[in-house]
């Protein structure tokens, strides 16, 4: 591994974090194993073509942006009847077995350098437990980051026949000077016929480097839907992934981003069809203004035994300025012929005819453009089930357009 381990991170650091929280031994061991694996692990893979590296994660100065012993956050959690929405420490006390069974079961802590770093150092996070048959509507987790770096881990366990709609919102509280780093791992475990919609809105300050990997494991008849909204941060690397392991499981990965200034979004949506009769729908819409840059990779991987698969992917990018750049790579990897799969990607500007139509109705060109951009996000917003999340995303889009 070419990245130097920050001097501030050692076994003592990890021991201290764990001891402060009075954690069980298995979690300390998992943290220490992740720490010692750092040397061997690679950064998340990034697309490279002749002469162009789509995102550069290697050059980040982790030394200056990671301060593991000074992690502060303010997190507000709203539960729903019958469900448990707990901070990690409380969850470890009240449901030790549940956490031990599922922690790291969906995302291997040693997937890459950044997931291992996150596992070794996380100090905040949420466990959402939805017992069998419970319908948990409008679960909300609103987090504020108040330190130079913050590592978070969220675990959602939805048992058989349960359902949950979840809002996760991350932004900054008190301002901290200089570059910062936010890392967010989310795992979703579903039982048979469970339904989870996990909606996430990231609106961090624009000197925060943001890494997130969210991954779900869908059991038989289960559905995992993701909403991934990215507005803030200096650089975001986001991986949203679903494994359709159970027969007849389904997933939607819905993304929205709006970049301006010199923001860089590296957005990835991946689905693995492993069971039979599974369905996936990947929809991402993004807008770029100023010198913002986006990178998108979508992967639909259909396994050898994934009979009767349906898999769709669409990605659309709208460029508002001449200095923005958009790279996209939607990939299909198909091993089973009993598949109906398609993907499409477009990059373009606001449609000139639409604009003309609206200006001919006496709407000023600027207002017309803003209305069209807002409308561009409607297919994404329509998917959001938690009203607060939908309104928040919409408000942020409108605010950015002014």
């Amino acid at each position, binding site marked *: 591994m070419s990245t130097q381990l920050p001097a501030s991170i050692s076994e003592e650091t990890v021991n201290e974090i764990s001891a402060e929280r009075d954690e069980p031994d298995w979690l300390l061991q998992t943290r220490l194993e992740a720490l010692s694996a750092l040397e061997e692990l690679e950064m998340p893979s990034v*697309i490279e*073509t*002749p*002469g*162009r590296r789509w995102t550069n994660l290697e050059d980040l100065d982790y030394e200056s942006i990671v301060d593991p012993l000074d992690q502060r956050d303010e997190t507000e959690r709203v539960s729903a009847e019958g469900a448990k929405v707990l901070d990690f420490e409380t969850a470890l006390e009240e449901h030790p077995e549940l956490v031990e069974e599922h922690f790291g079961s969906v995302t291997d802590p040693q997937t890459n350098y950044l997931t291992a770093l996150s596992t070794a150092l996380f100090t905040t996070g949420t466990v959402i437990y939805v017992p069998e048959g419970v319908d948990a509507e409008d679960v909300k987790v609103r987090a504020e980051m108040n330190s130079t770096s913050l590592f978070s881990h969220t675990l959602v366990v939805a048992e058989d026949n349960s359902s949950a709609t979840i809002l996760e919102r991350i932004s900054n509280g008190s301002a901290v000077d200089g570059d910062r780093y936010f890392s967010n791992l989310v795992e979703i475990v579903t039982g048979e016929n469970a339904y989870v919609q996990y909606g996430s809105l990231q609106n961090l300050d624009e000197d925060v480097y943001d890494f997130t990997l969210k991954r779900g494991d869908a059991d038989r008849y289960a559905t995992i839907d993701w909403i991934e909204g990215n507005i803030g941060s200096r650089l975001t690397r986001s991986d949203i992934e679903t494994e359709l392991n159970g027969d007849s499981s389904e997933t939607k990965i819905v993304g929205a981003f709006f970049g301006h200034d010199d923001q860089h979004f590296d957005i990835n949506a991946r689905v693995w069809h492993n069971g039979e009769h599974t369905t996936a729908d990947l929809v991402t819409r993004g807008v770029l203004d100023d010198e913002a840059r986006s990178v998108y990779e979508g992967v639909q991987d259909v396994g*050898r035994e994934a009979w009767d698969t349906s898999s769709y992917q669409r990605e659309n*990018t709208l*460029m*508002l*300025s*001449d*200095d*923005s*750049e*958009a*790279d*996209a*790579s*939607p*990939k*299909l*990897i*198909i*091993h*089973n*012929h*009993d*598949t*109906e*799969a*398609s*993907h*499409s*990607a*477009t*990059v*373009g*500007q606001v449609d000139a005819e639409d604009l003309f139509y609206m200006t001919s109705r006496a709407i000023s060109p600027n207002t017309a453009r803003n209305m069209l951009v807002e409308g561009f996000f409607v297919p994404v917003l329509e998917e959001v089930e938690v009203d607060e999340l939908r309104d928040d995303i919409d408000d942020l889009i409108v605010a950015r357009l002014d």
Partner: protein
Amino acid sequence: MSSDQDHLQKTDTEERFDFKKESKAAFAAEKGLTEETVHAISEDKDEPEWMLERRLRALEQFQEMPMPTDWPGQPDLSEVDIDEIVPYIRPDVDVRAGVDDWTELPDEIKDTFDKLGIPEAEKNALSGVGAQYESEVVYQNMQERWEEKGVIFCNMDEAVQEHEEIVREHFMTTCVPPSDNKFAALHGAVWSGGSFVYVPEDVTVEMPVQAYFRMNSEGMGQFEHTLIVAEEGSEVHYIEGCSAPKYSAINLHSGGVEVFVGEDAHVQYSTVQNWSKNTYNLNTKRALVEKNGRMEWISGSMGSKATMLYPSSILKGRGASDNHITIAFAGEGQNIDTGAKVYHNAPNTKSTIESKSISKDGGRTNYRGLVHIADGAENSSTAVECDALMFDNESTSDTMPYMEINESKVDVAHEATVGKIGDEDVFYLQSRGLDDDDAKQMIVSGFIEPITEELPIEYAVELNRLVELEMEGSLG
């Protein structure tokens, strides 16, 4: 935007015919690749010093570059051992640079090409034809009426001698430098044969020009170089066919194609590749397209064990355009990794890419493509469409497009679909009295029709026949 050259530098990083003839060679290089081999080839061809220098430089670059191994899902190249491949075999023909009368060819070579239908095609529909056997062109002919207009169609070795200035300017310089990739470097070191086509200003060659390449010896490499220079306002259609019989040792085909499309010129390059299924087909093909020029790549990849081929167009002049049509068919043991690359480096440039692939009996097809729109290439548009058809559950079909858009005033669209042959379609045709095999064959013919209709009739027929042969009797 910065100058054209800057952008160019971005690109500069990187058996149906299964009868064998006893190989008779006048000169065969030793297996493997050393400076001596390169000297020997160059000497045997009596080349000018500058060409030898270019070969040696390419050899050096080849030895420095690593094998490409880290592309996602790429074909396995571990079997490709350059030291086991004979890079150069000159067939035993008296006249160097080929004869221009068919009857003068040795019988077994004539017989080979007769079976492939070369002279017939020439009689019927071609302006000129060249045929390469092993490493050298053995037959070359150009109709007189084109010669009178200054059109040159000759073999590449002859061009080095006879048209030294044009070749020296264009040969592996700005279009495909040997540093582009490992196999381009290899090609630059040991290239032999191939075609040189020169079309003067405002000349339209109305009938296609054709070359046919054939490898007949076991364990050989074929490295023909094709250079097409189409001057301002000219127009030409070049067709290439390839085949080799099947042997147990591997063959390597690493051709290089460079096309210079002048202002307002139009070049169409069509190829149907049907190498035997022990051939590694690793080519570099590229066109530089000037203002309002148009480049069309039409390729059918049927044969080979592994193919890695991504014909590319660099649209460097305002209003230049590109059209790619590709079809790939991978059967048992085949890995056809092919696609297209287009660099939009000037305003008002346009590209369309249409790709169709079929995989069956455990074969793998992959569309791998790159569209790059440079900053300043405003009002450019690109449309990519990939469709894949899968026959069975042992096969694999991948689609890996890459789009890099650095300009906002653009129209970029990519679409891909993958599916199996519809049971309903088969049922419908069966209810009309066709048997299962015929029904599926008909569906496949329909699937690739948008491509075959772009090909000259002989090639469309050949492609259809190849597909039929691939499909015969092996459907489940």
